[in-house]
């Protein structure tokens, strides 16, 4: 007779540890639920959660990128059908993203050889999660106050032009109704691609505000275009991670993705019924909590100051 633990346990071939199927499915579902509710990709929550669950950071990052493809693909498809996706702008972002992701993988390998990958991944997460969480919390509290005071919550109208619009190599993007230099588009795409490789995130949480405030892309095409870029760049990052680091765990990814797909559907339904500001404040608190937990781990004295790992065979020394 098989024991219960045997039934629930599954061995992850790349992470090389045994895990509980339902914990990972649940993790995928919870993050999927949140991403459905808030319309975020969820990569920035999945990777730290996997690290908390003792998945090696290198595997957590690579598999996080793989998981983001699934949650972004269906969204991108929806926007494509509705016509709320700027293919031309998106493709330029993809080009930038692929260059950024390639650089990111190079840095990833370098950090791994130096033994600093885990630290840098944690540090980057602490910085991004606390910044994004803090800004979201501030913004939602502000709008809650305004709502209580009876004022109409008005989005701050972005200024007409900024320094971005004085750059050369301008191009017209008909779908977005903007005429903008391709330099900030490529740089933005590159930065997001870099983060996809190093942090295993889609980067929507940076891409969306940057497109609205820097490039002045109308809000109706922002989400679709961002998802379009995320699908291609995370796909590229996944293949790069698989070929250079062999750190993509498809068993882990499948568990997270199947949980995520189910969770996202329910999240989206609940999300339509709840008040926006309160929802955003909740997500902000969650993001801050995850960031704080990662930050604490950096300061706590480790059980063992010494660690051992296989030397990575490289030609360059």
């Amino acid at each position: 007779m098989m024991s219960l633990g045997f039934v629930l346990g599954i061995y992850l071939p790349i992470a090389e540890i045994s895990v509980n199927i339902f914990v990972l499915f649940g993790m995928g579902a919870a993050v999927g639920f949140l991403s459905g509710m808030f319309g975020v990709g969820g990569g920035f929550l999945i990777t730290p959660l996997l690290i908390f669950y003792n998945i090696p950071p290198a595997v957590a990052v690579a598999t996080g990128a793989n998981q983001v493809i699934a949650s972004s693909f269906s969204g991108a498809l929806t926007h494509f059908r509705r016509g709320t996706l700027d293919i031309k702008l998106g493709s330029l972002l993809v080009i930038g993203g692929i260059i950024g992701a390639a650089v990111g993988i190079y840095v990833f390998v370098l950090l791994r050889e130096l033994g600093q990958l885990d630290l840098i991944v944690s540090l980057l997460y602490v910085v991004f999660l606390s910044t994004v969480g803090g800004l979201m919390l501030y913004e939602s509290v502000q709008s809650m106050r305004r709502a209580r005071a009876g004022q109409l919550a008005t989005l701050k109208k972005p200024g007409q032009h900024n320094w971005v619009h004085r750059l050369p190599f301008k191009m017209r993007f008909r779908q977005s109704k903007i005429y903008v230099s391709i330099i900030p588009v490529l740089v933005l795409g590159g930065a997001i691609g870099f983060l996809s490789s190093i942090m295993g995130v889609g980067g929507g949480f940076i891409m969306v505000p940057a497109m609205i405030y820097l490039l002045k892309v109308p809000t109706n095409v922002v989400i679709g275009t961002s998802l379009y870029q995320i699908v291609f760049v995370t796909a590229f990052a996944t293949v790069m991670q698989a070929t250079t680091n062999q750190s993509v765990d498809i068993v882990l990814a499948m568990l997270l993705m199947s949980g995520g797909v189910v969770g996202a559907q329910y999240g989206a339904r609940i999300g339509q019924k709840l008040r926006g500001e309160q929802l955003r404040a909740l997500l902000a608190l969650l993001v801050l909590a995850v960031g704080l937990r990662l930050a604490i781990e950096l300061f706590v004295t480790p059980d063992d100051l010494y660690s051992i790992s296989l030397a990575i065979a490289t030609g360059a020394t």
Partner: protein
Amino acid sequence: MSMCAKALALAIWLGTAAAAFAQQPLNKETVEIGLSTDTIAITSGFRGTDLTVFGALDNADPLIQRQGRYDVVVILQGPERDFVVRRKDRFFGIWVNTESVTFQHIPASYSLASTRSLQDITTPKVFAQLGLGINNIFYEPMPDSFGSSATLREFSTELPRLKLKQKLYSQRMGDVQFLSSTLFRATLSLPANVPVGKHVARAYLFRNGEFLRESATSLNIVKAGLEFRIYRAANQHSLLYGLFAVFLAVVTGWMGRLVFRKD
């Protein structure tokens, strides 16, 4: 089970052969070990186990035998790999990997069993000459590794400690037992994280603290099962594997849309 029985039968045959030649001149003792299989396939549910090695001591002097002054040490050594040992130090309050030393040709695993504790068998000098025991493995730093001799010493003592902590290295005193005057059984540890590859088993025979001879046999450890096939695909066909991972993600995302379509 039948494999064990066969090994036992072989050992018993060796034993009778030994008895027949008991009148032979002294100092011709030989030691042989046998494994019931030359390949062990490990599945993903493997939680570690004991590996039993049978061996035979031939042409033993019955007097010395009775006094229990024959000693046997059996080791099982995993494939050699290069390892980095790193140390963390506080840096602005954060624990950061600072110093590191790379060691080369280090056995990935090392399991030892002996008739009694090592210091009772022979002198440390003999063990050092034989390179026998966890403390006598040569922890060789990479030629280009920098650092003072104190640093190198520090890291080369940490390496076996970490290996012991991971249960990849083990020493079991008293786990070589004589079942008869000629037949002995050694119980070695195969940890859950045992590395795959060619392992070498060696038996060392001592008489009155004097090293007589050794014999060796090899064992291949392979991983079996679906999980291992995935692991191998990720390493040997990494591009295809990566593309397949992307394909799976796209299909999963698309399926989710079909199943939960709201309109």
